[in-house]
């Protein structure tokens, strides 16, 4: 029996007096795709960012691919483990956050070279492969400012993949895109899921949730309200809050 690749236990997050994540648990198996939905302010982004410690959780443990970190432990070892987890978990942001002073290729090879100390030729070869995979070979030397939103997000995905992560975190990757550009990004994410990547995705893209997700979590006010396979949760939700939310967005 395979072990879960992500194990979250008793996760809490406070922003000052504001209790945003109220003790959630989650286990994700390798190759599993988990989609988190929920109203604005539910704490979805915060949860995701706690997974790679862009936000330091207030309490609980996070374990990714065997690297376990307890919240708020001081010291060097703690920081080393955060670096380790970040290399195992690639992240894609709503606002792309590409480095504007680097070309598409530059963006992709940056982390492998500086963090993994990968030789440049190897990093470039790998980056070209990834660019081809996201369908942007001809944009290799363009600066982000000359790419469309969809193209930028695809480069951002390639950039995260260049670190050869074990899992991928997506925080509303298509929300900042014009409707006609959403498709190209979703298509890349689907391919990624099909190739067996473990993914935790915060999105309102219901097609993706329905077609690709193995499990959907409805989150509200810092807790899991309901969790289940897509057809079950989307067509036949048990909780009143879930029903209201789905009625609202579908």
């Amino acid at each position, binding site marked *: 029996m395979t072990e879960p690749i992500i194990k979250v236990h008793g996760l809490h997050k406070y922003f000052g007096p504001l209790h945003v994540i109220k003790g959630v648990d989650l286990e994700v198996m390798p190759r599993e795709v988990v989609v988190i939905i929920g109203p604005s302010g539910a704490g979805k982004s915060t949860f995701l960012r706690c997974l790679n410690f862009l936000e330091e959780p207030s309490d609980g443990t996070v374990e990714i691919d065997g690297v376990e970190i307890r919240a708020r432990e001081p010291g060097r070892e703690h920081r080393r483990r955060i670096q380790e987890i*970040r290399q195992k978990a690639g992240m894609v942001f709503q606002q792309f956050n590409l480095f504007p002073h*680097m070309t598409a290729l530059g963006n992709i090879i940056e*982390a492998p070279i*500086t*963090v993994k100390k990968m030789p440049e030729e190897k990093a470039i070869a790998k980056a070209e492969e990834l660019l081809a995979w996201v369908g942007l070979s001809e944009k290799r030397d363009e600066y982000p400012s000359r790419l469309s939103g969809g193209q930028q997000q695809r480069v*951002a995905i390639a*950039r995260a993949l260049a*670190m050869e992560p074990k899992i991928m975190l997506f925080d509303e990757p298509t929300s900042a895109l014009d409707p006609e550009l959403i498709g190209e990004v979703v298509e890349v994410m689907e391919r990624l899921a099909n190739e067996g990547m473990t993914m935790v995705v915060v999105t309102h893209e219901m097609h993706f949730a329905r077609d690709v997700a193995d499990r959907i979590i409805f989150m509200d006010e810092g807790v899991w309200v309901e969790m289940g396979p897509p057809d079950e949760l989307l067509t036949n939700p048990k909780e009143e809050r879930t029903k209201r939310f789905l009625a609202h967005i579908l």
Partner: protein
Amino acid sequence: MDISTGSHLPLSRAMKLLCLLVALTAGLSLLYGIQYYAGGPLRLAVTSPVYDLAVSGDGNLVAAGAQDGAIRLWNIANGWNMLTLAGHTGPVTGVAFDSSASTLFSVGQDGKVLIWDVQTVLSAGSTGGQAKKVLATADGPLNSLAVAANGSLLATIGKDGIVRVWDPESGQVLQAIGPGESTKLAVALSHDGTLVAAGDGEQIQIWEARTGISLHRLEGYVEGEETEGQPGQGEKVTALAFSPDGNYLASGSDGGTVLIWDIEKSKVAWATKGHLASVTKVVFDASSEYLLSSGADNYVRRWRVSGGKFAGLFGGHLGTVTSVAFGADADTIISGGSDGSVRLWDGVNQLERHLVWTRLGLMPVWGTVLAAWMLGSGLLGLVLAWGLWRVHTWGHLGSLALYTIGPLFSIVLPLLETTAYPISWSVRLNIAWPLILLLVWYIFLVAYIRHDAIAIPYQAPEATSLAEQLMAARRSGNIRFGLFVMATWLFIFILLFSVLRRFGLDIAFMRKWLPFIMGGAGLTMFISAAAIALATILALIGALARLSNNPAANGISGFYISLIRGTPLLVQIFIWYLALPQLGITLEPKLAGILALGVNYGAYMTEIFRAGIQAIGIGQYEAAHALGMSSSQTFRRIVMPQALRIVIPPIGNEFIAMMKDSALVSMITVQELTFRAQKLGRQNFRNLETFLIAAAFYWILTIVFQFFQGKLETYMARGERR
């Protein structure tokens, strides 16, 4: 304006003709200006530089030898009536009267000594008659002349360095002394004719005139005295004169020193650094009470012989004062200069009382002004003619007005100035006919332009649609606007140049010393570059400290910024250079300057860096961290390059400001551009010229760097959205 007239003409023939006329006129003006400055023959205003000048004992006659080979003789008593004596075939380098003013002697670069009978000359009328006698050497130019009081003996110095003593009666050369080892530039004869003195390099030799026996050798200061650093050391003797009483010898040198020697004791009686440039002539008054000296610093100075007390400064010449003499008494002073003027000064009030020029004509000042105008308006005219052709239209009379005002101005004013001369209108016309011709020509041009056929509306032959026509019209408007802007710049330059010339801007001096002043430019650049490098490092550290949450770092940085910003840069420079030695830290001036500028600008630039770093969004940090990059990697690879791009334009501005502020380090003896300009200007009394060079250099540098900064900015912004 008759719109229909031109509407069927693509480019009216009248218009074409106008362009050609303007171009032609402009071309001619330009040619005139160029040939004037190149020393060409066409000069609407000419004078001949005075080389030497003599005044008769009664103070009534002034004789001036000039470059054009003529001697001009003015009769002061007779309203400065002028005679021209022609005889020399080269520049006249020396003139002298005997004490009774019955004979006038002159020498020239043609190697001749001419002896004139004053009575004959005066009675011969304006042509001046012939020389009474001509003595000649075959050995080349004669450079200086001295005459004994009774006219019985002459002494000359030739370019060959030989001192010749002549007997004017027989025409024989009694003695030919030399040449010595060094160049001889000055000769003097005692009034009784017994002694002849000549400057021989740095020394002065005195011989018995008739026998050539060497009597004295005045060499610096008397033995045993401290001579190092005394005035006149190591300078060449350029002027000499015996006092009428025979007790003293005065000498002037190329370093501007005036010395009075006690001949008996062979000793310097007194010395003064009298002039800021070479002394050209020294002369005693009849009672041996006063001494006059003239110099290449454009001034005449008067001294009391006993004690060497300064007794008057006379300024007004527009160039080197080549020669000076006393008039009827010690308070009447007459000087001649390379500007071609002879001036009479009131010694009591130190004022100019009379001014005459060596040739009737336009004043030399207006001559150069005119040439400058011609040069400038010629350029302007060519530009405008080209513009008219390009734009195919004439909408603004203003541009031609601009073009014509200049020449008109420079024609009318000099003409008016000729009324200062007591000459008839026929003579005046004879001098000024080229100007009048030009004037008529310009009036014609302006009148022609006013003609309706010329004033056609805008034409765009190739434009088919209305939109195209409008576009073309706008473009032509832009071109015209650009032309006007260009013309205005040019106009200002011409005006400035002319005005400065009017006040005696010494172009030759500027040309001569340009390399010296520019020699400081390298240092200016070096200091600025070094200081900006230091400032950049300090600013980066300061900004990081300011942004950190470490209270110590934050405090130190805040203190530094507050202290530096709260005190004047000049005070900081003095602290680095003058105050630190008191703490046992002595810095080289250059280093002190770089540190002061760098530390100062560092404080100001801290804010720039802080703003630059803060401008980088949180998303960039998060993206980098999510990829596993450490904080320092994130800063180096992601934040810094982007922040740099933001701060480079302001740093460029700081660098440009720094180049200008670097002038302040001239205060602590760093020999950069400003220091050199200041030093040279002070020494030569030529502050206008030297600081003009310095200012021009800073200006040009600023323009050049602004250009490159613009390029850099575009380069750095290559990732930005266009």
